[in-house]
């Protein structure tokens, strides 16, 4: 990984005593984005925009691969943000607001109400995934999110996001 000059990762605050990630640093975000951009261009074949947000929902870094449409930047940010704040892949949000799916699940159609929440910022397009890590609370803490936009198929967007997510643990 290419080191940002003079920018050391503070291991004390980034990892807990068991080696679990507590927060996503810029170095980690760069590693994820580099892998995801390469994956999108070389494997999927469509240049994408990819964004990584932290547990505050704030963008740590966003990269637009050469040739990716300019409008994909903000959609990637929205996907990463939506996955983070809801703690679930944006695929799930898409399922919630799909009336065909909602009609078949026992919970009913109330999930449709999440459409356009958060002043329209909540994005229900497949392609954003939350980043979870073993935390102090029960279950897993959401420490961030990664989102991709730019592939004609949202499934491919999700694959690119997962490639970036995997790179976090390389």
């Amino acid at each position, binding site marked *: 990984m*290419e080191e*940002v*000059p*003079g*920018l050391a*990762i*503070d291991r004390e605050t980034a990892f807990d005593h068991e080696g679990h990630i507590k927060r996503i*640093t*810029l170095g980690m*975000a*760069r590693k994820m984005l580099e892998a995801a*951009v390469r994956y999108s261009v070389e494997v999927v074949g469509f240049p994408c925009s990819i964004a990584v947000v932290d547990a*505050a929902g*704030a*963008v*740590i*870094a*966003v*990269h*637009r*691969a*050469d040739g990716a449409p*300019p409008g994909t*930047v903000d959609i990637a940010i929205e996907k990463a943000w939506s996955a983070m704040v809801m703690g679930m892949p944006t695929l799930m949000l898409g399922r919630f607001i799909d009336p065909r799916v909602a009609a078949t699940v026992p919970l009913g159609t109330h999930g449709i109400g999440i459409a356009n929440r958060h002043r329209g910022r909540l994005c229900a397009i497949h392609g954003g995934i939350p980043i979870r890590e073993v935390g102090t609370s029960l279950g897993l803490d959401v420490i961030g999110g990664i989102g991709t936009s730019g592939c004609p198929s949202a499934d491919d967007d999700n694959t690119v996001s997962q490639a970036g997510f995997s790179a976090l643990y390389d």
Partner: protein
Amino acid sequence: MDITLDTARDMISAAMGEAQRIGNACSIAIVDENGWLVAAERMEDALIPALDMARDKAWTAFAFKMPSSEIGRFGNPSAANAGFNTANWNDRLTTIGGGLPIKEGDSVVGGVGVSGGTIEEDVAVCEAAIRAMATPRPV
């Protein structure tokens, strides 16, 4: 020369080196020859709104082909060219200094925006980024 993602990443790395030297935690954004964002990154401990501000500064500097600190004089009633009203513009426009256009000869090929310190410090970080663009990438 187009601003590719690789170029932008090198520029951001160089800018962060300069920011580290000054002792600021900055956000840096690079826009391309059409004003669209290529890459934006936020350093450790940089303030959260700084990333959006850096992005706005980069776009403003690109669009007006001048440092974003100079936009302010448009709105100054005592200046000769008064009448510039930011409220009539899109929400990307900013009059805060810290954005520089990236020029090649007379043409503007992009913009860089930095947020995180005083205007002078931000401009110094911008200049570090532009210097890095002029430097060929080590093979």
